[in-house]
C-alpha cells in the first residue's frame, strides 16, 4: 500500500539507534535499546510486543512526550530529514501539533471534559492553520463527518461525555488529523473498543492514511489489527526490535523464535488445536535483562552463542531478525 514513488526519497520518519533510559537510584534502566526503523509517507508501520517491550515508549520518545525521569539517552529521530529529538521544547511542541498527530488508547484522556469537541477542534485548527474562527468550525464539521460521526453539525457542540467510546475515539482521530499532520502515532487506538467498533476504527485509519498520504506508526499488542492494517511490522522484545519486515512475511514466515512463539500462542479461528504454543516464562524485567540475546532463557532453540553475545538484525528473506540462527556468512564476514 505504500506509494512506490516516495520510495526513492528519504523516509518521512527515520529513527536511528534510539535509546531511552530511566535513571534510578539503583542505576540506569534501559527501556528502549538501540532501535532503528523508518516509515515512508503513506505507509503504516505496525509495532507489536507484549507489555513492557518498549513499544509505547518508542512512540512517546518520537513525539517528545516521555514522562520524566525517562529520557532519550542516544540516537536520532529525523522527521523529513530534520532532527527533532534535540529541539527546544517550544519548537518541538509546534512540530508536534502541526506535523505529528497522536491517538492514544483511552480517548477520554485526550479530550478535555470541560470543552465541547467543537471548541477543542477549532482551537487546534486555528493554532496550527491560518484559518478564521468560522472557517475552522466548518473544517471541524467536515473532519467529524470524515471520521464517520453522524449528524456532525449537531454533534460538534456536544461535550466528550455525550459520546460513546467508539465515537469518542473518532473525535480523537479527528483531533489528531485536524492540522493535516504528516505522521500519525497511534498507540493502541482500538484496544479499549469492542470488536465491531474496532473494525470501523481500523478501516477509518487505513482510509485516512491512504487519502492524506500520512505515515502511521501503529503501536498495538494485537496481531490481528496489525495483519489488517500495517504494511510492515516491527516485533519488539525487551526494548529491542526482534524482527522487522513486510507484514505478510512476519506473520506467515516468522523467523525469530520469539515471533514464532508469539504467532503460535494466538488462538486461531480457522483450525482447532488442543493446545496453544506456549512460550515458557515471561519477559524479563528491565533490571534483569539477560546477557546475550534477551530472549535466550525462554528460547527453544538457544545455543551457546546466544547466552554470550547479543545478535543484531540479520536479513532473512524479505525481513530481518535479531537471532543468531540467521547470522549469514556475509554478516559474519563483515564482523571480522
Amino acid at each position: 500500500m505504500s506509494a512506490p514513488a516516495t520510495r526513492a526519497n528519504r523516509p518521512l520518519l527515520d529513527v536511528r539507534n534510539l535509546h531511552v533510559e530511566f535513571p534510578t537510584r539503583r542505576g540506569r534502566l534501559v527501556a528502549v535499546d538501540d532501535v532503528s526503523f523508518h516509515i515512508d509517507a503513506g505507509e503504516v508501520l505496525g509495532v507489536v510486543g507484549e507489555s513492557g517491550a518498549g513499544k509505547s515508549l518508542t512512540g512517546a520518545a518520537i513525539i517528545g512526550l516521555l514522562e520524566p525521569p525517562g529520557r532519550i539517552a542516544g540516537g536520532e529521530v529525523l522527521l523529513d530529514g530534520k532532527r527533532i529529538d534535540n529541539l527546544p521544547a517550544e519548537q518541538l511542541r509546534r512540530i508536534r501539533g502541526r506535523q505529528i498527530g497522536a491517538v492514544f488508547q483511552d480517548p477520554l484522556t485526550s479530550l478535555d471534559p470541560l470543552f465541547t469537541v467543537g471548541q477543542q477542534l477549532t482551537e487546534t485548527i486555528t493554532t496550527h492553520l491560518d484559518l478564521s474562527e468560522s472557517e475552522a468550525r466548518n473544517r471541524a464539521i467536515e473532519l467529524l463527518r470524515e471520521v464517520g460521526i453522524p449528524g456532525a453539525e449537531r454533534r460538534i457542540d456536544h461535550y466528550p461525555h455525550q459520546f460513546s467510546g467508539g465515537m469518542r475515539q473518532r473525535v480523537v482521530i479527528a483531533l489528531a488529523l485536524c492540522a493535516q499532520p504528516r505522521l500519525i502515532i497511534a498507540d493502541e487506538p482500538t484496544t479499549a473498543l469492542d470488536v465491531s467498533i474496532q473494525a470501523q476504527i481500523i478501516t477509518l485509519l487505513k482510509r485516512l492514511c491512504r487519502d492524506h498520504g500520512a505515515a502511521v506508526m501503529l503501536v498495538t499488542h494485537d496481531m490481528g489489527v496489525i495483519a489488517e492494517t500495517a504494511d510492515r511490522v516491527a516485533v519488539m522484545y525487551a526494548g529491542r526490535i526482534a524482527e522487522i519486515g513486510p507484514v505478510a512475511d512476519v506473520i506467515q514466515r516468522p523467523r525469530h523464535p520469539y515471533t514464532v512463539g508469539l504467532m503460535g500462542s494466538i488462538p486461531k479461528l480457522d483450525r482447532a488445536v488442543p493446545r496453544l504454543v506456549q512460550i515458557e516464562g515471561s519477559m524479563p524485567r528491565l533490571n534483569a535483562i539477560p546477557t546475550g540475546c534477551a530472549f535466550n532463557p525462554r528460547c527453544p532453540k538457544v545455543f551457546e552463542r546466544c547466552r554470550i553475545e547479543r545478535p543484531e538484525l540479520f536479513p532473512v528473506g524479505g525481513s530481518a531478525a535479531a537471532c543468531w540462527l540467521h547470522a549469514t556468512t556475509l554478516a559474519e564476514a563483515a564482523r571480522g
Partner: protein
Amino acid sequence: MADGAAPARDPNAGPLLSVRDIARSFDVSRPWLARMLEGQPRLLLKAVDGVSFDIPRGETLSLVGESGCGKSTVARLVVGLYRPSRGTINFDGVNVTALRTRAALKPVRRRFQMIFQDPYASLNPRWRVRDIIAEPIRAHRLMKDNQEIGRRVDELLRLVRLSPADGEKYPHEFSGGQRQRISIARALSSNPDFLVCDEPTSALDVSVQAQILNLMKDLQRELGLTYLFISHNLAVVFHISDRVGVMYLGRIVELADVKALFASPQHPYTRLLLDAIPDLEMSGRGRTPVAGEVPNPLDPPTGCAFHPRCPWANERCRRETPVMKPVPGGASSSGTVAACHAVEEGRIGPGPTQK
C-alpha cells in the same frame, strides 16, 4: 471431603448447572428527592433479561458479547454475587435461588468458585500467597490442622505450575500471568466442581494468555471441572469452549456448539461479530464494516433489540421480540437455537462459512 449435604451423584443425571429465564435489573434512578422535584419516574436498567442455558458436567460454556451485553452480570448471578430479579438457577439438582440463608447455601457454595479478570485487583496485597490460597479452606472449615493446610497449599501451587516456595511471597512479586495462576489455585482450594471465569485472560499478554488457557484446559481434564467462561474474545472462546452463547443487550441471541457456531453462524449479530474479527491469515477479505453501536440499554429498541443494526430487519422485527427457537434444517446447525425472525422464516440463507 464430601459433606453430608452433597446428594448422591448419578453421572448421567442432568446438567451440572441449569439456568432458567434469569433476569436482573438495576435501579439507576436519580435520588428520590430529585426525582420527586422533577417528576421523573424510576429508571430500571435490565442488565440481564431472560437468559436460559445448561452446562453438562465437564464441559465449558462460553458467553460472548460486547461490553454492556450482560455477560458479566450472568456470571455474578450464577455465583450468587447478585440475586436474580426472577428465574431459577439449579446447581447439581439444587435450586440455589431458593436457598436464602448463608447456612443453607454453604454446602453448595464450596462447590463453585470464580476467577476474575484483573489479577492485580483480586489478590490482597498484604497477604502472603500461602494465606491467599488457604483462605477458602479456612473459610469453609475444610481442614483444621495447619500442617495439613500447608501440604494442600503446596499441592495447589504445584497444580498451577508454581513452586511451593512461591507461597511465602507477596502478590506484587509476581507477573500478571503468575498472579492469575494464584487466583486459579485459590479458586481450586475448596475442591470445587464448577468455575466461573470472567474474562480470565483479557488483562494478559498473548503469550501469557496461551499459558493460562492451556493450564485451564489441563486442569479441566485432570480434575473434571465444569466452566462457565465469559469473554469478548471470539478466538479465545473458539479455543476453550464446547458450547457458546452469544449475548446482545441482556439476552442470548444464539446458543450453539462451538464448531457449528463458527462454521455456520445463524443470528445476524453472530455473523457481524465473526466478520469483525481481525484476520491473521490476511485473505484480503473485505470486512463488512458494521454501522451503528450497541443501543442504550436504558432505552432498548422495540421488538428485536438488534433490528436497528440488522440488514435483514423488517416490520415484524421492529414489533415483536423473537424467542429462542431451534434453527430448522441443515445438519451443520443441529442443536443451534437462535432468537431471530429472519432465521426462523428462512429469510436469510445458511451462514457464510468462515474462511
